[in-house]
């Protein structure tokens, strides 16, 4: 069964300097509070993994926690660019940020391979794109039956995956519903995992569209109501679109970002 801890304690136990860390969430259920706790605890040299790095990754990058980003789409959804991400890539501020760039299909399949205990995944992808020239993590593979050439990508197996979910019971069984993203795969692919939840309940009542991740497959669970803010948790909170818009101004400038960061700590 998963250990039930406070967010600070869970991050302290699970996330170490130099780790490969995936905070997954596909617009819905983004584990923002956990990401900000990683900033507070001053983790360094992280390889951050995520299909859709958005504000919380901008914050982690701006705060100097990351040395590398593995991703497929980085932006402030519905608003524009991630300025801290851009500043890191274009100007190496606050530090050089190595990038390993994929498509969504590739990233999703890399998690699936990781969750499946396979070293690689096969897909129809990347053919003719310049992405293949920028990384050694995209290679051709030949079908042993038809001779056809397809594309292989290596498994993702983060040291730690962090996701946010609606609720868990006291055994740490986690229930998630609404848009499910790639969270289950990211948890199952990881060596250690933390799930922050809106609430811990005695019993997980059945719910249409819900999936359960068994507590014995999760390392820690922390109750963090609103832990997905400014993203949302279906049936618990609404997306705070103003925060996304305001982040554009805060993050555009190093000084306003520094002020924001001071306040966070």
């Amino acid at each position: 069964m998963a250990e039930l801890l406070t967010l600070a304690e869970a991050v302290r136990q699970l996330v170490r300097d130099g780790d490969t860390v995936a905070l997954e969430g596909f617009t819905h259920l983004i584990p923002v509070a956990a990401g900000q706790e990683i900033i507070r605890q001053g983790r360094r040299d992280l390889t951050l993994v995520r299909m859709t790095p958005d504000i919380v990754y901008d914050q982690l990058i701006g705060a100097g926690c990351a040395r590398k980003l593995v991703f497929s789409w980085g932006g402030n959804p519905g608003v524009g660019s991630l300025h801290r991400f851009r500043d890191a890539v274009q100007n190496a501020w606050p530090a050089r940020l190595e990038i390993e760039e994929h498509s969504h299909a590739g990233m999703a399949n890399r998690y699936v391979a990781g969750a499946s205990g396979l070293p690689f995944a096969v897909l129809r992808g990347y053919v003719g794109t310049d992405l293949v020239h920028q990384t050694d993590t995209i290679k051709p593979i030949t079908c042993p039956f038809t001779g056809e050439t397809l594309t292989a990508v290596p498994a993702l197996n983060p040291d730690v995956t962090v996701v946010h979910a609606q609720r868990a019971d006291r055994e740490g069984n986690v229930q998630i519903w609404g848009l499910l993203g790639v969270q289950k795969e990211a948890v199952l692919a990881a060596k250690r995992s933390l799930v922050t939840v809106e609430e811990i309940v005695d019993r997980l009542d059945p719910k249409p569209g819900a999936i359960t991740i068994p507590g014995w497959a999760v390392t820690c669970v922390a109750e963090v109501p609103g832990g997905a803010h400014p993203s949302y948790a279906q049936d618990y909170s609404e997306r705070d679109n103003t925060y996304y818009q305001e982040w554009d101004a805060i993050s555009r400038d190093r000084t306003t970002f520094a002020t924001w960061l001071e306040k966070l700590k």
Partner: protein
Amino acid sequence: MTYTSDEMMTVAAARSLDDRAVCFVGIGLPSTAANLARRLHAPHLVLIYEAGAVGAKPDRLPLSIGDGILGETADAVVTVPEIFNYWLQPGRIDVGFLGAAQIDKFGNINTTVVGDYADPKVRLPGAGGAPEIAASAKEVLVIVRQNTRAFVEKVDFVTSVGYGDGAGYRERLGLPGKGPVKVITDLGILEPDPDTRELTLTAIHPGVSLDQVRKATGWPLRVADDLPTTQAPTDDQLRALRALKEAK
């Protein structure tokens, strides 16, 4: 009713979608056009969003690719790996509907970097789902505002393949889909030349001059011999579009 060039573009894009087509849409202009089509002539258009919504029927415009309204109104909610593996990859998508930061004369799309990849002038968001949509959807529609920043002779980085360097390129690579069949802009409509695959102006929006389109294009633009003027948006179409954009 008067209308903006963006409204013309969105209506023209919506018209390009047939009822009952299965359409893989991104947020922003593609989503707006697809939902407009659903409110007009294509009530059974099947909208697929990469966050995992199959058959989404939002009654307002989703604000993000993972807006709750998509899952709540969908026929089926599936995981992100499933969207790409079971739905896009096998060729179940009739129309892939993409935007672009840069597009070149062979319909290749760049959403990765302006300038050099290692030392970019502008770092863009990246690929997202587009490379595989561009490869595997039976047809691709592109909706993008036309100007020389966006319409370049050759993209700085091929994020999503159109026709590569011209005729035969997709076939040589074995890409399953047809590629971009229409690029719909705020000035007109471009289609690939059947022989060379070079994007060619095949319709011009009302009130737009040919010179204006040429000046907004970063290469010597080819123009179809017969260049019809796009039908202006009807009042019904404009009312539906405005209602859609105002719905909360």
